[in-house]
């Protein structure tokens, strides 16, 4: 024992000479990375000591007291699965049950595609993970393809396809003046893109603008996609959150499916089930037939395996418990509608408050837009002013998360927005 200690202390002493020889770090040249524009907002908010502070930054739902919400259906599901102590690995493709229920939401309960087993689907790490799996899959199997991304979009979309090494192009989407959809330019971009291009579409409740195409517009888009043979990839992060009705929120997807498109779809339960930190979602790719779906699924698994091997079980179990029980599912639908209704209520309240303050600007867009976010039209400078003077936190693109608005703070918020914008 003593001998061994002697040896090891000698070894440690001599090893310090080696340490001296390589003084500098391998990472000397590593630059500090820019803060994530969205998540950085919440960090700044948390650091602010002001009692008046308001966080309308990140898109996580809050109740009317500004508190995070755990849905009752989720609590009940957690109670039921608390006894389940199975923590074994899920298959690479994740929970089969969860995926089955999730496909029903996007594709319809009685979807023929589901019956015919034509959908390749795997559990993914929420919406981000689903998009990333698809982007990597796209790179591997359509290596010459690019992705068309709307302007603007959730900032992380650019990061995802960039890290997957898929070249990006943009298409017009948001119309600055009307604070609505720039439909004409969007259609031009769709027509001018080379045949067979890949497009990223927000299925509903566009993030960050809240601007969605109308049903008629979706039909036109779908038709043009047919003419051009484009591939439609839907990112659906807010099903249920937009209108309060999940079936209605999936309309864009259903239109494309009716038209025969073989789409891809990313689904997330972060917001509509409040499962944010559990990282539960699903990636699906519609195929020509069952055989192809099996092949595609196996390849998606090949991408997941060297990334995280298999997805986390807990969140998936919550989802399948809720969606697999008719009563719990009904409760969930009720709770989702309540969340959506509260947000719609806050939109109305914010707009009315601004109009009552005699704002010279039009705030119609607050109630025209849909979903968690409102693209206020505020400039980065105005946003900075809101933060520095009024302790109101939002992303510098002027995106307001309505989920952070309450009856308690809507007056303060309206007043602050009015102050910074009245002389615009």
């Amino acid at each position, binding site marked *: 024992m003593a001998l061994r200690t002697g040896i090891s202390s000698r070894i440690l002493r001599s090893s310090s000479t080696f340490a001296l020889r390589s003084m500098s770090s391998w990472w000397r040249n590593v630059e500090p990375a820019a803060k994530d524009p969205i998540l950085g907002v919440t960090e700044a908010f948390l650091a602010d000591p002001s009692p008046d502070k308001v966080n309308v930054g990140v898109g996580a739902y809050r109740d009317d007291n500004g508190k995070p919400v755990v849905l009752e259906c989720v609590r009940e599901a957690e109670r039921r699965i608390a006894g389940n102590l199975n*923590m074994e690995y899920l298959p690479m493709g994740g929970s089969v049950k969860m995926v089955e229920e999730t496909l029903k939401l996007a594709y319809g309960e009685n979807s023929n595609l589901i019956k015919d087993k034509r959908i390749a689907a795997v559990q993914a790490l929420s919406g981000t993970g689903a998009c990333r799996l698809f982007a990597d899959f796209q790179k591997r199997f359509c290596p010459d393809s690019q992705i068309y991304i709307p302007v603007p979009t959730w900032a*992380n979309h650019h990061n995802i396809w960039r890290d997957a090494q898929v070249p990006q192009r943009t298409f017009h989407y948001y119309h600055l003046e009307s604070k609505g959809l720039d439909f004409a330019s969007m259609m031009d971009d769709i027509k001018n893109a080379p045949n067979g291009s890949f497009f990223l579409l927000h299925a509903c409740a566009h993030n960050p603008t809240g601007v969605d195409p109308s049903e008629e517009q979706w039909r036109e888009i779908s038709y043009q*996609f047919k003419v051009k043979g484009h591939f439609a990839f839907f990112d659906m992060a807010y099903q249920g959150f937009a209108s309060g009705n999940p079936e209605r929120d999936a309309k864009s997807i259903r239109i494309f499916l009716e038209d025969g498109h073989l789409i891809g779809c990313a689904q997330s339960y972060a917001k509509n089930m409040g499962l944010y930190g559990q*990282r539960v979602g699903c990636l699906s790719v519609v195929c020509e037939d069952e055989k192809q779906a099996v092949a595609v699924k196996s390849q998606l698994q090949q991408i997941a395996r060297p990334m995280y091997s298999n997805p986390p079980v807990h969140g998936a179990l919550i989802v399948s418990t809720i969606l697999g029980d008719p009563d719990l599912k009904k409760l969930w639908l009720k709770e989702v509608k309540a969340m959506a209704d509260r947000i719609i209520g806050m939109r109305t309240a914010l707009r009315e408050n601004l109009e009552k303050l005699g704002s010279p600007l039009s705030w119609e867009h607050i109630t025209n837009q849909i979903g968690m976010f409102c693209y206020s039209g505020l400039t980065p400078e105005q946003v900075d002013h809101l933060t520095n003077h009024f302790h109101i936190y939002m992303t510098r693109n002027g995106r307001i998360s309505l989920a952070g608005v309450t009856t308690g703070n809507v007056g303060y918020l309206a007043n602050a927005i009015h102050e910074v914008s009245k002389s615009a």
Partner: protein
Amino acid sequence: MHPQLPSLGANSSSTDRRLSALIRHLEGSSSSSSAMESQNQTISASATSAFSDNSVFGHVVRAPEDAILGVTVAYNKDPSPVKLNLGVGAYRTEEGKPLVLTVLQFALICSSRVKEYLPIVGLADFNKLSAKLIFGADSPAIRENRVTTVQCLSGTGSLRVGAEFLAKHYHQRTIYIPQPTWGNHVKIFTLAGLSVKTYSYYDPATRGLNFQGLLEDLGSAPSGAIVLLHACAHNPTGVDPTLQQWEQIRQLMRSKGLLPFFDSAYQGFASGSLDADAQSVRMFVADGGECLAAQSYAKNMGLYGERVGALSIVCKTADVAGRVESQLKLVIRPMYSNPPIHGASIVATILKDRNMFNEWTIELKAMADRIISMRQQLFDALCARGTPGDWSHIVKQIGMFTFTGLNSQQVTFMTKEYHIYLTSDGRISMAGLSSKTVPHLADAIHAAVTRVA
């Protein structure tokens, strides 16, 4: 079938596929080659409707089953009552059942309820405690704030995030991995953008470490190359360097500026002691140098499916560690934004609480002891049968796996005739054995060795 069609390999353009689709549509049920040819000539790339019923992924072929996970798939399909799964490394009790640690059950009740997203780097407590666990609570690197730790998706996720970081920010993009190693290592590093080379490790003749070969291969690696090291309980061989050998490896690596990347998936599982199983890592950190370490809680806390792990990067200075952490976030954000909360909060709860931590170390030692006992029992059973060959490696190797030395034909034979499922490299998971099933396995090995070349 259609000789005039462009070949639809993976490199065919979307135009080719459109043309093929259109040709198939236009052709209908009757076809003559001349009609086809003229159609070929008249169809241009700018068709009025490019829409087709054909998928842009129509050329995708079915991927082979994952070699390791595929074993369990095959096992599940087998109706035999005597079937035995020695494939995937998941711990089983004497009754052959998964084990939920008692301490986990307590932790599940106490776990904090963060309701929303974790930060990109994960749960702060979890990160701090994980670093302490692997580097030691008294580690100077931790005290000096030179360590950045980020929560990741178990060992796989930690390796992948680390590798992506290295591919972006490190000057050398070659990683040396031991021969053999866990099957998923190559894919992880390759997809992250690193190029993979191997270094000698396992000696089939001795079924032990080829130490000379290892030193030679690392000795001829280019300066600065990354080296993957299994912290303990090497997977799949169960062969670990001794402490003296680790010291030599360390000296060699530091003299050549080789960057250590530890994969620690079995801390506590190998010897039964968390500290002993971390010695290799701590040795490297003690010399003040830099390294990476991927930790997994899949096995040692039985949290397999919760995907809990951590990546630590030990840096020269706190400033560097801060910058490195900021760059790790940029790798993680476009992969999955932030890690799953459930498993990490369980781990943090256990590591934080003295009683739970002690309870855990006791259960961990019990698991390790059971595996060590299985090794002994299997060895004794083979000796009792007079199975030809030296089987002492079964008790010399450490951790969950034994590299039996059986070849793939012998493995196939064991699966077919004895319904024993293991990976084709002859690796068996000792965790899947029980006193009841040892005789069956011993019979199978005996038969394989005596009847199959």
